């Protein structure tokens, strides 16, 4: 350090090894590409989404065939709400995939490799969320549109309005994708596949099942609340303009907004914990 400076300016001493691979700044787009590779290269994606598609088609068309065989008496409704029966099992597939998207990384230890490669945990979670959301939204939109078209063609009922069409296709696709995001958040919080899937299936089914057995008059209020706000009821509400069971409660897009609110809380919690927790 105290040696006199050489006459000509020399480059800084490059101690160590210099790679010939150019350093280019990585950003969210690179994380998205990475997450896309991850989600398309595991079999669980193909299985869960494949099962979802099959169930939506089989159940949607099956219910429509039965309704049409019975003379298509749908009351005042169009044929679109028939899509609900495929959506319920589809939601279980989406829950599974959503949880696995992140919990499988914890199960295999891949999460350490992932976060070593991308230390910005928010970027990892954002990339996962975006890729997963777009994938589920696209697939369910295509399938729900196909099923809705078939149902309307098969069953003689009231002609659906444009708003009903939008909710039965874009609405259901958004609903499932947001439900999947909530599952992903629970997967990030619980960090265990079986545990997180159990939590989500419980959340999906238990309120409704519990409400079924609330015979005591003292529990009437609780029963109504559970019926109105359980996830399957929200899916039905999405198809209808009026609250489907009681006088009040969400109807139409409101059902989706409630789920978005819950998902925002869940995903926010996942961001907070992922950023502060040891891996």
């Amino acid at each position: 350090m105290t040696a006199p400076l050489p006459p000509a300016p020399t480059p800084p001493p490059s101690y160590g090894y210099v790679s010939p691979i150019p350093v280019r700044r990585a950003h969210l787009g690179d994380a998205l590409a990475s997450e896309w590779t991850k989600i398309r290269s595991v079999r669980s994606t193909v299985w869960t989404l494949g099962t979802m598609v099959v169930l939506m088609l089989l159940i949607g068309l099956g219910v429509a065939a039965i309704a049409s065989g019975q003379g298509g008496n749908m009351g005042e409704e169009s044929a679109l709400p028939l899509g609900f029966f495929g959506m319920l099992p589809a939601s279980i597939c989406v829950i599974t995939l959503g949880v696995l998207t992140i919990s499988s990384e914890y199960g295999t230890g891949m999460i350490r490799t992932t976060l070593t490669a991308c230390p910005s945990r928010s970027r990892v979670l954002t990339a996962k969320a975006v890729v997963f959301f777009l994938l589920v939204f696209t697939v369910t939109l295509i399938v729900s549109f196909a099923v809705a078209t078939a149902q309307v063609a098969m069953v003689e009922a009231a002609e659906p309005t444009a708003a009903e069409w939008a909710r039965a296709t874009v609405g259901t696709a958004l609903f499932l994708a947001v439900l999947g995001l909530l599952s992903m958040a629970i997967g990030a919080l619980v960090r265990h596949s079986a545990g997180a899937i159990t939590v989500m299936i419980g959340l999906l089914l238990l309120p409704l099942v519990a409400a079924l057995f609330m015979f005591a008059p003292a529990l009437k209020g609780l029963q109504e609340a559970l019926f109105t706000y359980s996830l399957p009821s929200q899916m039905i509400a999405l198809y209808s303009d009026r609250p489907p069971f009681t006088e009040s409660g969400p109807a139409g897009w409101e059902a989706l907004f409630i789920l978005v609110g819950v998902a925002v809380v869940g995903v926010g919690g996942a961001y907070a914990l992922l950023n502060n927790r040891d891996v």
Partner: protein
Amino acid sequence: MIELEGLTKRYGTKTAVDHLSFQVRPGMITGFLGPNGAGKSTTMRMMLDLDNPTSGTVRIDGRHYRELDEPLKYIGALLDAKAMHGGRSAYNNLLCLAQSNRIPERRVGEVLDLVGLTAVARKKSKGFSLGMGQRLGIASALLGDPEILMFDEPVNGLDPEGIHWIRNLMKALASEGRTIFVSSHLMSEMALTADHLIVIGQGKLLADTSMADFIRQNSRSFVRLRSPQRERLLDVLHENGFVAVESGNGTLEIDGTTTEALGELAAAHQLVLHELSAQQASLEEAFMQMTAGAVEYHAHGGAGDPGAPPAAPPGPQWGARAGGPTTEEL
């Protein structure tokens, strides 16, 4: 260059890593040695920002790990061999890592070739043997062609061929001017590969020294003698100013002399010798003595006290060879 400054990690009341400060310098292999549970893996996880330190900092080339946008180009790490998704092919496991750091896709093929996994590139990694998994982990560490490489117990569970391969790879990487930081709980392994040594026990720094210094300070050389005329031999040795220490089974150990001197002395007094051999205490022994107070899980019973290991354990030892620590064992 990696710099640790007062790095501390506490889990409740238990201190896993206790005010660790040291530097890992480029162009050499730095061995990170400590008994099981000494805090090696915890330290390495904190270096990679996977675990948050209770206090203290780690800097990679002057920056915190989280400030690196494409860390794989600065630092590659093998933490544990199975830190990959088993359902994904080796190629795709590496591809998603490459993409997240903007590393060109052709590099995936290059590193697979480098570690010899090209033939199984499209196979699911869960079917891989331990050695193949380790190679895949090393491929992921080399993906960004980084200047710094960290290996956590890289030879664990490998066969001799695999161990040999990893040793030579680390030496080749260090000779290119890279910083190599490798952890192990085996002194003998470190003696064969490392240029510099950092020893920790119960999270505390016990030694930060060059390998050569460590060997010089810790390997005692002595001559072992055995004779049926033990009493006369002891008298002769005493008369000539040698201090003999009895080490059981009628053998004597004499420090600070050579076999030639003692052989000629015995011949001059017409003493029969059954054994006359040069011995060197193993570095493993020195390491065990250094960490004796810091070993977390002691085995109790007849196996002996790790604080006082037998002077010359049976079986082949690299330290007992004439060539010393530079000989390749395999």
